[in-house]
């Protein structure tokens, strides 16, 4: 459970910094509003995208079906420790 939340916190903070904190730091100029909009939208979209893929893999309903040859190769290459 802890390792699961590490990534969650890291990425939420990362995109939160870009999308919520950074817009306040943009210097005044003719493009301020535009850049703020761009940052907020980008971070929202990218964070949502990452989140969906992360949550989907948290509790998979079925596992990968691998051919035995590949499975044997993976046994050797990746070892047995999770």
């Amino acid at each position, binding site marked *: 459970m802890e390792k699961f939340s590490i*990534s969650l916190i890291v990425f939420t903070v990362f995109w939160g910094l870009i999308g919520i904190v950074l817009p306040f730091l943009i210097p005044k100029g003719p493009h301020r509003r535009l850049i703020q909009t761009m940052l907020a*939208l980008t971070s929202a979209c990218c964070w949502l995208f990452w989140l969906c893929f992360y*949550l989907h*893999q948290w509790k*998979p309903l079925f*596992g990968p*079906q*691998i051919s035995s040859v590949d499975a044997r190769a993976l046994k050797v290459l990746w070892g047995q420790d999770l």
Partner: protein
Amino acid sequence: MTLCQLFLQPDAAYSCISELGELGIVQFRDLNPNVNSFQRKYVNEVRRCEEMERKLRFLETEIKKDELPIYDPEDNPDAPKPREMIDLEATFEKLDHELKEINTNADALLRNFNELTELKHNLTMTQGFFDDAEMAFTPAHNRNQRDSDDDQVQLLYEYSMISHNKLGFITGVVPRERMVAFERMLWRVCRGNVFLRQAEIPELIEDPVSGEKLHKTVFVVFFQGEQLKNRVQKICEGFRANIYPCPENPHERRELAMGVMTRLEDLTVVLSQTQDHRQRVLAATSRNLRTWQIKVKKIKAIYHTMNMFNNDVARKCLIAECWAPVSELDRIQLALRKGSEASGGGTVSSVLNRMVTREQPPTHHKLNKFTQGFQNLVDAYGVATYREINPMPFVLITFPFLFAVMFGDAGHGILVTIFALWMVLKERSLKDKWRNQEVWTIFFGGRYIILLMGIFSIYTGIIYNDVFSKSLNIFGSSWRVRFGDDTLAKHDSVMLEPTPYNYTRSGDYRQMFSGTPYPIGLDPVWQLADNKITYTNSVKMKFAIIIGITQMGFGLFLSLWNHLHFNHRHAIYLEFLPQIIFLACIFFYLIILIFYKWTSFDGSKATDAPSLLIHLINMILFSYKTDPPSAAVFYTGQKQFQTFLILLAVLCVPWMLLGKPIYRIVMNKRRANRGVVLDADVRDTDTEDMLDDEHSHQQHHQHEVEMSEVWVEQGIHTIEYFLGCISHTASYLRLWALSLAHAQLSEVLWHMILHLGLSMNGYGGAIASFFVFMPWSSLTVFILLLMEGLSAFLHALRLHWVEFQSKFYKGEGYPFVPFSFRLLLDEAPVEA
């Protein structure tokens, strides 16, 4: 945006318009729409400008003929004063005349030169004939040599000695290919009574009449008598042989030959001098040509604009009407003052007067080179109505993002980004290249769009873990193979256990999933799995639905913003509320269910996991079976809560359908009771709104709208919205479909093409890899980058135009096209 009236002094008008053209922020209206263009005030000046342009075009063709470089000025020159126009006209006239003269002279000289060259050859060859004849005269030679040639000559000479006057001859030059036919014709017509000698001119000479270089032959025809002479002359004319007079006396011939030589030398000198003169004139012109062209364009534009003005004879000034942004009025005043001063008017300066009107102003967005491309995408569907929200700042990010969701390959994304970066970094030098290639200008115009698309594609490619159809394993997979070797030997394929804890309550459980998902994106193990597609279909579809509903909800909130801006309070309660409640009840609830399913069901309860699609359908049909576990209720109170949601959603339909028309009826009744009211309707509370007499014919008849129209319109909007909610949500599934297609195509290219080369061993493998790279890379570029890219572009654009913008965008405006010299000059295609 405000409508302005300008009162211009006729003398100052030209310079004022010139200043406004440099500024480029006013759009003039045509005040004489019914006047024929030939009857307008400044038609003569426009005609003069066109004449100048014609002369400049002629000069440009001449410069191009000599392949001289045309110098491009760094910055555009200002529009010249009216008196300068006369100077320009005089200059062009002089250049035009001079160049035409040079051309005619050069042609004449050249023809002369060619004739003399032919004459020279003629004389040389005939000299040869007569020399032979002379030699034959010496008796010693004569008796000893007995070839037929000498016989002929001797015969000729003896004959000529006897009847010297009667033997005439004609010399001339004829093209070599016609020589045989010429000879045969002579023989036939003159019945063999003429004598022909010929000699070929070894080098190519230019024909004086046609100007081509041909091989020619010199001939001399001897005949006796007037009749034969006529016949021979006619035949020569027919064969286009050039006849040259040749004196019989050898002295005269020699003198003529020398005269021809000197004349030829003189002509060569004169010709080269003429060419030099022409080059000099053209070189001088080429330095100024572009500047002149720009100046003439500007003059013409100014006079076209002035033709749109109203000439008020009574007040002795020109009246102009224009649209201008309110924030720029100061700059416009400044420009007018500058123009009045420049024209030397110490008298009354031009006046700007703001008018008020009920007409809809043009829509003006302040853009730069980055946002211009995205604004074009939005405007292609419809220009924003005056003052409504411009979707462009949002489209700027969501369009490349949705493209990337469908394109999702980091390797392809890198290629696209590199291409776009090249175009962006080399902007200045690439701007004017290949202006005639339409495909290139389209790509170049959208360089910033392509750059953003590429960057987002790299991100989505990382999340999909797809680099040219291969996965990267950076953080270590969360899956391990823990089957025994005997199991692996017995079966062809195995499915790994997804539950990360022992749920079987028996001893043979082995944990194969660590319980922690891969940190960024899809786990690399799935690339090797046979059921990869089943797995990714689920997550891609869910994401597509989530992002689609989010975008549609966002569009609805933008419509709320619009209502608040235009002060349509009633629209908030009668349109926005039912719309958002319907969307929330059914589709936000669906999103919540998706997140709930993701977090509550794991591998141990896989057979009991609810199928969300079935649940959605059952929710709407009010059918709650318990039969397959995937359709059974999975939280307490689900039936009641869902019934409540559906009823609430159904309530929204009549709310939206009846709300607005009833409101209209009530407002009409209230207005009828109060009598005719002059002040503005609730709808248009534009603060600068007052009545304008001249434009009363365009008054909005909003307070007298037909009720039947309102009912029909509202019915259409209601059906469109509610049916659209469902169909648009399903439409967002194209995000899943296209990303699947792209991934499969990419995998096919790898396995069928590149893999063939890479899987061979040794040196043969190296050579095979080399040869296999070409089809793989060209197919990648043409099919995956270009075709799939275009396809994803199109679908992302459709999603924005239809699914997103139908929630809030009216798009019934017309664009603001200012009178700007910069726009004028940029649009003119370079005649390359």
